[in-house]
């Protein structure tokens, strides 16, 4: 290998990337994806001054949390929900489920195993404290979600002959090469302007161990490296063949492959291990809320108008359970959690500023495909136990189940997933496909990473958020400019009406955003109720 001579800035940038500095985090933060949760303890409401009725629109997590807390504080609550189910975007699909999406295609799920598929939220960062606290209070059992598995694959269709590489190998090779470059620069006194003599010695010592460098400060295959990067032949038992350490990949092909970039998927605070998921599917969370408030949810109610005056709110809706007849509900307050994409098409009596905010936020494109296979070949053949593989193919990622390890029989992969806010456009094209076409495409692409698809495929299912009539997209696609212009106007109480949901948070798309928004909305409503 011929090491190139990087500038100091290039070097430091590379170190930053490998060590995971604030750079990625800042980029994420500007998109509103990596905020610390503001949750510290359960919300404390004063309760109403007299009998008060709160009408909540939408039985998703934000709406149900509001109902749960307000009722405990003494408010009378009722939820109107368009669908014939509770839970909103927090849902899980299992074998036997059927949905009709916009355009009239039926989504079928014929999984034979107990494998499940979470089309919306599917993993919980530990700093999303409100979600965890509700899981504790409502008795939702959690299990680890393996976000980073060093045995999972990073794959480029254009590098290494299309052969996937292991996450751990790419990570350790980048670390080793960068350590070598930096160590040599230090050794050649090229960084004496910035590093003191004492620090230089410490740094060199550390780099040798961190990058597993030999005495010539080179990153090379050795038994020491085998103990860090792994073995081509593992240490034997008895008279089995002797161990042989694995061979690092050279720096240049690694850099040119783009796999280093894929490694950054694991770099952000949001995706810091460990992550968690509810046992048995994400709908365990929505079901837990529903157990508390089911008696106040009216299903099949399509809101067509939200009117208000000083005295209260009147909501008009079509009641699917009474032949679509037009009904009205009145209340003292209204909490509306309807996604802005849908709300923008509903007549709402509110300030011009709130109207403009409601109409200003585009809804992100996102999709998922799940496939069921006859056996867990990723575990049995590839030794991938849970976690996520990434690829430059339009399927973007394959997520392995984090439960049922090494069991025989069929199992479900999340075989394709992306969102447009990740900066890629593939998700629009997935969204144009019929349910069968999505399965065909996920199959045809995925077999380039796991050729076992050919022999083991059973069935598939999918979800396209832009083909869901009650959300018209996945989540509020805020930008910094849009937030500057509209966020406050969207979140302020407008007379008797307040909006809530992930779109009213700086944690878009995440359950934590919807919960914090809901708790903040009911706290302000409760304060307004009790204001002199």
């Amino acid at each position, binding site marked *: 290998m011929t090491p190139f001579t990087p500038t100091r800035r290039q070097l430091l940038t590379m170190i930053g990337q490998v060590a995971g500095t604030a750079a990625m985090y800042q980029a994420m933060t500007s998109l509103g994806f990596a905020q610390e949760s503001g949750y510290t303890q359960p919300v404390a409401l004063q309760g109403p001054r007299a009998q008060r009725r709160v009408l909540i629109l939408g039985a998703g997590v934000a709406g149900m949390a509001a109902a749960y807390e307000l009722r405990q504080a003494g408010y009378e609550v009722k939820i109107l929900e*368009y669908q014939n189910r509770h839970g909103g975007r927090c849902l899980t699909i299992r074998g036997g489920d059927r949905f009709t999406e*916009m*355009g*009239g295609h039926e989504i079928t799920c014929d999984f034979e195993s107990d494998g499940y598929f979470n089309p919306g939220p599917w993993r919980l960062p530990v700093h999303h404290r409100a979600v965890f606290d509700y899981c504790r209070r409502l008795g939702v059992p959690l299990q680890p979600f393996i976000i980073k598995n060093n045995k999972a694959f990073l794959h480029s*269709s*254009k590098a290494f002959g299309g052969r996937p590489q292991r996450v751990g190998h790419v990570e350790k090779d980048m670390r080793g090469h960068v350590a070598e470059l930096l160590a040599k620069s230090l050794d050649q006194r090229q960084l004496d302007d910035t590093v003191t003599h004492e620090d230089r010695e410490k740094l060199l010592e550390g780099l040798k161990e961190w990058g597993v460098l030999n005495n010539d400060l080179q990153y090379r295959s050795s038994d020491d490296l085998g103990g860090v990067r792994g073995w081509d032949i593992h240490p034997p038992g008895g008279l089995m063949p002797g161990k042989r350490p694995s061979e690092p990949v050279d720096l240049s092909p690694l850099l040119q492959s783009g796999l280093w970039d894929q490694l950054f998927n694991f770099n952000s605070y949001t995706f810091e291990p460990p992550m968690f998921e509810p046992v048995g599917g994400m709908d365990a969370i929505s079901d837990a809320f529903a157990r508390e408030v089911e008696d106040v949810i009216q299903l099949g109610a*399509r809101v067509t108008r939200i009117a208000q005056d000083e005295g209260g709110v009147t909501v008009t809706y079509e009641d699917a359970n009474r032949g679509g007849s037009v009904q009205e509900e009145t209340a003292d307050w209204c909490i509306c959690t309807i*996604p*802005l*994409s*849908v709300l*923008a*098409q509903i007549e709402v009596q509110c300030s011009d500023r709130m109207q403009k905010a409601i*109409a200003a*936020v*585009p*809804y*992100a*494109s996102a999709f998922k495909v799940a496939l069921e296979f006859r056996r867990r070949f990723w575990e049995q053949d590839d030794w991938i136990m849970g976690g996520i593989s990434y690829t*430059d*193919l*339009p399927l973007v990622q394959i997520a392995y189940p984090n439960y049922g390890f090494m069991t025989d029989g069929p199992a479900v992969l999340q075989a394709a997933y992306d969102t*447009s806010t990740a*900066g*890629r*456009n*593939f998700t*629009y*094209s997935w*969204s*144009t*496909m019929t349910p069968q*076409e999505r*399965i*065909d*495409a996920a*199959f*045809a*692409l995925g*077999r*380039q990473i796991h050729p076992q*698809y*050919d*022999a083991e*495929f059973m069935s*598939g299912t999918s979800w*396209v958020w*832009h*083909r869901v*009539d*009650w*959300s*018209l*997209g996945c989540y509020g*696609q805020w930008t910094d400019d849009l937030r500057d212009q509209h966020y406050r106007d969207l979140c302020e109480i407008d007379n008797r009406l307040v909006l809530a949901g992930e779109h009213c948070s700086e944690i878009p798309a995440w359950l934590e955003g919807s919960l914090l928004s809901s708790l903040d909305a009911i706290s302000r409503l409760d304060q307004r109720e009790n204001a002199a």
Partner: protein
Amino acid sequence: MTTPQLYACFLFIATVAYGATSEAQAQEASDDPIAELLARFSEDEELFTQTSGEALYRTTCQACHMEAGEGAAGAGAYPPLAGNPKMNSKHFVAGVILNGYQGMPHFADEMDDAQVAAVTNYVRMELGNAYQDAITADQVAKLRPPDGGDSTDR
């Protein structure tokens, strides 16, 4: 045919179609449903690489406005593009594609002026519409927001 069988039939072409897609190749492979499907993905993950109005419609707009531009309705709705009086104005249509509209995302960053013009003309001259006044890439350029992406050819 099952999915694996279907795939086996077209293994070679499908493999070629992604990674080496040009629209010409996509058309050559038009007998192959899987290759045609995979050709719907852009060659560039950030920018749409299709150039014809129809190809761009099939890879983006169709997600919401559906195969024949008929739109769809439920709790919320996507407007039909056929017979919709708002389609009268080519400037309006191109502006919506560039800037978005309510929940609809904008495509100023992912499409250049020629692409926006091609989609605009496609949805106004096909899909049951028969407007005659085409929009040009230069006219699209004037509709771009000040920081609305790269308007030039790539």
